[in-house]
């Protein structure tokens, strides 16, 4: 009886203790995501939604100034305290590869399943070369931000094809505007990719597969001929790559995205009030060439300075029919090898790469989701027919992708007369 009584007391006590305190919780985990400022809102909001699902996880997005230069320093230090980071390198020769978890082996090595089955093959494939150290979170296309307000002021609509575009360029040039603005490198890349698409289209869809296999067949002279034509006609003004934004010269060449955005909305520094101020709601930049990556910065600037200028992103209309959407990967993300929370990092990746969430992220950032039916989203936003959408990664350049870009930039350097 005594033993029974003691046992009952003990069991009850244990039961009581089990019920004590708060509900048993999992370990509290903080995931640190390192990145640039350009994607912060999209990832921050994704993080917020993820935290609601996983109440024991807190995600901190850390912005790093001078990201490209300092990222490797951060990753190489003894305790980087980074779980995920936006990877600036491309797959071939990526110097950051050694800091990344191989996402292909994560299932066999860590018994974790990374699910990117909703992603678009053509932009993921180039990131797989025996290993997958990073994976693009979104897709982008190059194009033109058109100042609709300015064009409408002169009774011009947003150009929808090559002829109308040329006409609009000519018109604004006559009105005293420098028609095309932008970062020289981005302009070069935009023309280069559009040129590739043009070549592809000229050869017809039937030959695309051949062309995909042999990019050397692309006539790069043809591609840059378009660009040179624009320069010759004075639509693009070649000048120093650095411009004084305070002296009123809005010309080709910008130091950073903020500067470019202020220029687009005609925000100038007021010496009297000693702060930036909106000059007008018309602007002095008719066309600004950039990728969809720039959308968030532009939108922020418009809101911050309460600009009334309306703008629209279109594809560079170098074809008679329309522009071309050449899908490029962007915001590649990696899991840091030194992370102590790889399981939650994979969980967060899975969350962001689920179709629904990826579309949310892309909508916030103004870019396109990395999903298998991306064409639908490009078509919805830009009205581009499917035949004008070309997928990065299908084109297997003899020179690799990175080499091709280098080539483009070198060509651009020649045009600008710069030594890089």
């Amino acid at each position: 009886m005594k033993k029974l009584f003691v046992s009952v007391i003990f069991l009850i006590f244990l039961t009581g203790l089990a019920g004590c305190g708060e509900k048993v919780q999992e370990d509290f985990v903080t995931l640190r995501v390192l990145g640039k400022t350009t994607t912060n809102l999209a990832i921050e909001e994704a993080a917020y939604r993820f935290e609601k699902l996983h109440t024991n996880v807190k995600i901190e997005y850390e912005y790093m100034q001078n990201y490209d230069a300092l990222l490797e320093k951060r990753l190489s230090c003894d305790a980087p305290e980074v779980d995920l980071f936006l990877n600036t390198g491309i797959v071939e020769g990526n110097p950051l590869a050694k800091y990344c978890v191989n996402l292909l082996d994560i299932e066999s090595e860590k018994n974790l399943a990374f699910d990117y089955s909703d992603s678009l093959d053509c932009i993921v494939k180039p990131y797989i070369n025996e290993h997958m150290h990073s994976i693009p979170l979104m897709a982008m296309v190059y194009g033109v931000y058109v100042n609709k307000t300015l064009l409408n002021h002169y009774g011009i609509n947003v150009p929808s094809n090559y002829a109308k575009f040329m006409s609009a360029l000519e018109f604004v040039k006559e009105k005293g505007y420098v028609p095309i603005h932008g970062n020289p490198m981005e302009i070069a890349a935009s023309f280069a990719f559009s040129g590739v698409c043009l070549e592809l289209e000229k050869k017809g869809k039937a030959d695309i597969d051949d062309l995909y296999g042999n990019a050397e067949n692309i006539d790069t002279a043809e591609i840059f001929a378009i660009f040179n034509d624009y320069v010759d006609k004075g639509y693009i003004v070649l000048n120093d790559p650095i411009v004084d934004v305070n002296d009123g010269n809005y010309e080709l060449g910008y130091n950073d995205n903020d500067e470019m955005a202020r220029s687009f909305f005609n925000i100038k520094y007021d010496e009297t009030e000693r702060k930036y101020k909106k000059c007008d709601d018309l602007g002095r930049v008719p066309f600004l060439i950039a990728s969809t990556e720039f959308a968030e910065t532009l939108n922020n600037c418009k809101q911050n300075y309460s600009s009334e200028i309306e703008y629209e992103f279109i594809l560079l209309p170098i074809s008679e029919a329309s522009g071309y959407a050449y899908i490029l990967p962007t915001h590649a993300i990696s899991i840091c090898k030194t992370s102590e929370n790889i399981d939650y990092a994979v969980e967060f990746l899975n969350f962001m790469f689920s179709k629904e969430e990826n579309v949310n992220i892309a909508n916030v950032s103004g870019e396109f989701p990395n999903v298998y039916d991306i064409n639908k989203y490009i078509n919805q936003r830009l009205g581009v027919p499917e035949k004008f959408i070309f997928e990065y990664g299908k084109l297997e350049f003899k020179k690799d992708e990175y080499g091709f870009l280098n080539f483009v930039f070198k060509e651009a350097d020649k045009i600008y007369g710069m030594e890089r």
Partner: protein
Amino acid sequence: MNQRETKKRNIIGMIVLTNIGLVIAFSIVLLSYTRSYNSKLNENNMAAVDFTTASQCVLFETEFELEQQKIDTIAEFVTKAANEGKNGAVKKGWTPEELLDFFYSNYNSDYIYYQVVSDTTFKGWCNSIVYDDENDNLQAAEYKTKWLVGEKILRTRPEGAKFAIVDYSDSTYDAVQKHTVKCANKPIDGGLRLSPEFTYYLNGKKVTSISTPCVLWEEDENLPDGGFYQNYVLYAMFESSYIVKEFKANDRYKEMSFAIVNADANYVCRNGKFTSDNLYSFMARHADMSLEAQQDIFASMVSNDLGSDMGKSIYGISYYVSYKKIDKASGNYFMVTLTPTDAFKAPELNIPLAVLSILFAVLLIALNGIYGAILTKRVLRSIEAEKQASNYKTDFISRISHDIRTPMNGILSMAEFITTAKTLEEAKGYNESVMESGRYLLALVNDVLGISRIERGKMNIDLEPCHRFDLRESVVNEIRTFAKKNSIDIYVDDDGENDDCIMMDKMHMKQILMNLLTNAIKFSYKEGQVDFIITTVWRDDKTLKLRYTVRDRGIGMSPEFAKKMYEPFEQENKMAVGLGGSGLGLHIVKILTEAMGGKIECETIEGKGTTFTVEFVHRIIYEGDTGNSKIDVDLKVLTGKRILVVEDNDTNMFIVNKLLEDKGVFVHKASNGLEALHMFEESAQGFFNLILMDVRMPVMNGIEASQKIRSLERSDAKRVPIIAMTADAFDEDRGKVFEAGMDAHLTKPLVVADFFEVVVRLIKGEEK
């Protein structure tokens, strides 16, 4: 400590334990209520958050104050050296490299870095930038006419052009440069000179910095003096993650986020929900508030040392914003905390926990009561039992004394009468009374010892093969004399068709039946009849159930007595008168019957008689299983045999000697074990046919003597039969004698028939 005290202590211990349990249970309930109370949104809790915010400020200030004092002291020292150098007292001051070497060799820390930054960061346009304290702005000074990058002239300053005020506030990175110029132009005032959070270029980590101005010597071989004096700012940079951990360590509310911002809303450091480039940007993006609303908050922050703002919706969630000015900072810096108002809401009373706790408490109370009652009852019962046992002992001794005194008195008186008897017949009559009293005494002693053994758990049930008819005849023969003496006729009936050989503890079985029959005879009327009936209740191949019925037609028992007839020493007065008895007989019958797995029943009618029925199940032994152990005693074999009798008691020696010599045995006497051993050793091989050995003897006891005899190096030592004679009649005593190598055991006083049966059997065996 006696048993009663132990039990008392157990009760107290259990009650203490259960009460501790109760206290814990109620504490849990109380705690769950307390947590609930603390979690409710009220002024106290808001004050608690404000207090946490303020206390974080103090911690932050304490963390940085010592470091600020350190760098200020060293900066003053190197600046003094530089000024002395400028005055020609020394050649030059400290170089930036020397200063950093000094820090890293003297103040090595895992999370603090040191850096010196020149205030001339905009050399392209001007030689220096001046901090306009009044307007909190930077002014480029000593403008250059040409902007050079390397040797290349990039731009020529237009004639008379006035350059704009340099604005660095646009990005965090530039804000650091602004801070450098600002810091370099303000003298050391002892306050914390915090700078916006930036990324340290050597390791890419976010750092939270304090700074102080100093003048250093910058070497330049092209200059005549070999260098020049330059304004620098010395930074001590703490890894932000370290500071953030400090915040977390003091985080009262798990969801509370911390940030330190300057008046431009730039973060000095932050954690948790504070994201974006700066607090303005954060609020613009995540809070549903206009620019004006944001500015209102900042205006409120600047004008109040401590404040709060309820219910700001950030990320769509209502937050409680609390802020506190960092008093020790040089300039306007604030600690801002965000606490989701959900955190204040009562995580309602934890109902499952509370219910469980209450149930636990109730159960404990119930168990406490029940077990306490059980224990108390047990202890009371135990105390009562002890009391009864004590009374029983007293009563027992009293009764025994009485029962012993009575026959002893008879013996002594009769013995005295014998000495004065005038005729032999008269003496024989007295002698018979002595014998009667002696037998009574013997029976009484046997009964008492038997009960004692049973109660001590020492009784063994020794099953042995026994014939049904043998048992019956043995009992009947033994009781018939007693019955005849009391003029009682014994009617015997046995329905057994066969003389089954069955397993039983014959000795105890016989004791049961004898006790019942003796009682029946005692309590029968003169000239009456006692029935002894053996009935087969059932039988199968292996077992047999027998019912033994003893019926008398005597005085019977009253109903009152019948209830306690099995209790020791219980005698119904009317019955006891003139009939004798210790009152232990039925008690022994009852105990033995139950110990042997049997059942006893009694029917009695006062004045008409009593019927006892005992039933046992016996295993049947078939031929071949065992033989009939009965030995026909052939006393002739004893003639001429030599038996060594070892006995220290003269009377006993006399009895044994007489018994044996009457049968023609040559008796050799020894008074102790040692003497017997010597006699055996000195005898010729096979001289002694048998040894009768008393057990308890002086010098050497029978056990030891037997062992030594058996261990002798002669062939007859192992063979010669040794019979133990002892008053120790119990099983363990038998065990001892057999262990010592003896062959048989006889209990004193000797039963002559048994004595000769054993002696003859062993002598015959020895001859074989």
